[in-house]
């Protein structure tokens, strides 16, 4: 291939493969993995150099090495792990309740028309409301403790989950319902064999969307009031101009959020095997 591109058509095809060709082949095969890493490394390098030569003020932009050093120091403290525990539990409880309740509520709205029409305006209004703006009110209702954080996580996550599941339940393919009806499926069997599998992809999409929303909820909640938590610590660090620790804290949140995201995707690929193989096929087709 490389020989062809250089314009030496037939003569060079049988020639021994040089190291450059070998590199080109290796790079071509792995570019999906190499390029993201390369992009990351280049930015980090540029950042590091600019900080070292004084182009960036270290007080405002801690260099990557400073972040790593702060991180190594941080993970050895009780404080850090206490923060992780606090934030993670707010996330898990709020997110878990929101997804479960959202599934039930969204499905009920989609399946029972009247119920849907009745609650639709509230869901639409809440969906248009920047729910994080309700945090001061949530503080009045739930006080300064962990429950206010769980509440704000719930509020930010619940609505998008409901909207997704509602849409899913409304768009179950008529064709499949007709097949089930034609074979005389009972209502419960129809639900199990057609409706649930039809909605499942919407459910996972909602769960993935919810991760980002719930993380925002945790962060905003802790900014307002907390005694511990990753975002709370981040806020404290900012006031002390500890940018290295701050950025390490932010990275930790990103990392944990990515982990939650991956977990949902993993559960999805396990549950919806018929869809995974479908996307695998399309990848094959793209590469061909």
């Amino acid at each position: 291939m490389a020989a062809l591109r250089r314009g030496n058509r037939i003569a060079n095809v049988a020639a021994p493969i040089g190291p450059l060709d070998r590199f080109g082949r290796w790079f071509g095969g792995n570019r999906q993995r190499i390029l993201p890493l390369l992009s990351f490394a280049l930015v980090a390098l540029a950042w590091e150099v600019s900080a070292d030569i004084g182009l960036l003020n270290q007080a405002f932009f801690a260099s990557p090495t400073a972040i790593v050093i702060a991180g190594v120091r941080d993970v050895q403290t009780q404080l850090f792990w206490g923060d992780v525990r606090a934030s993670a539990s707010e996330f898990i409880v709020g997110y878990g309740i929101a997804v479960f309740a959202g599934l039930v509520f969204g499905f009920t709205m989609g399946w029972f028309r009247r119920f849907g029409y009745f609650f639709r305006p509230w869901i639409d209004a809440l969906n248009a409301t920047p729910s994080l703006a309700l945090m001061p009110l949530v503080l009045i209702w739930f006080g300064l403790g962990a429950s206010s954080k769980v509440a704000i996580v719930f509020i930010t996550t619940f609505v998008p989950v409901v909207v997704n599941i509602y849409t899913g339940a409304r768009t179950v393919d008529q064709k499949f319902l007709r097949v089930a009806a034609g074979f005389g499926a009972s209502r419960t069997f129809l639900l199990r064999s057609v409706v649930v599998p039809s909605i499942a992809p919407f459910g996972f999409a909602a769960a993935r969307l919810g991760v980002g929303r719930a993380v925002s909820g945790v962060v905003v909640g802790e900014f307002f009031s907390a005694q511990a938590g990753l975002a709370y610590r981040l806020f404290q660090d900012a006031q002390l101009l500890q940018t290295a620790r701050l950025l390490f804290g932010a990275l930790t949140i990103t990392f944990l959020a990515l982990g939650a995201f991956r977990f949902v995707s993993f559960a999805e690929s396990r549950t919806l095997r018929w869809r995974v193989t479908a996307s695998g096929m399309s990848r094959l087709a793209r590469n061909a």
Partner: protein
Amino acid sequence: MHSLAINDVVMEYERPRTHERVLAIDHLSLTIENSSFVSVVGPSGCGKSTLLFIIDGLVRPTVGSVTIDGRQITSPGRDRAMVFQEASLFPWYTTLRNCAYGLECQGVSRKDAETRSRPLLEMVGLAGFEHHYPHELSIGMQQRANLARALAVDPDVLLMDEPFAALDAQTRELMQAELLGIWAHAKKTVVFITHQIDEAIYLSDRVIVMSARPGRIIDDIPVELERPRSLDIKRTPSFTALEERIWHRLASEVKHGGEMERADRGVASAP
């Protein structure tokens, strides 16, 4: 009186947005003897599919009734099974589970239903594809599975809604021959909707020609070609004579119905 009888059926429905009343089927009567193969041809939107839905019990006629051996049909039942037009296999089930679906609907356990479905998959030539998902099958294979799913419940009447429409010409001919083979063994009553005149003649004991909407029967043609039929029969003079006759009968209707079809594509199957 072993037969399927459609007694003076009228089907009228309302368009969802415009609330306009549409007459889809106009006083249609038809008696189909048991174990016979009857095709229905007609221009698009003439109510062929609607008629099939009425026989299956998915749709209630506005006026009139359908009886099987004298019993009136009010809902889908075990004695009838439908082979739907489009790829209507559930994408979330494997071929085997799809095939077993009808039996599972009847309360047969999943394991038993799958055991009973295996020979049918074999019969339609899908042995070895039990654990493939529908999207991993070709369209022709999907329609075989679709047929197997309907046959699995062992119905007396098989209702087929343009089952081979999406297939290429060669696959379609092969499937036609295979369907005849299966029908010869199973001896079920088949009502077969199609656009293809040659397909209708090749398969059937009788071809019903429907008018453009509102659907009425404008011709009822017995096909007295010897069985078993090979695909070569399509080139015999008696075959082409029948083809000619049906084509002329339809041509005027298609011309007449052309504008109507453009105005409201697809509504006939969604009353």
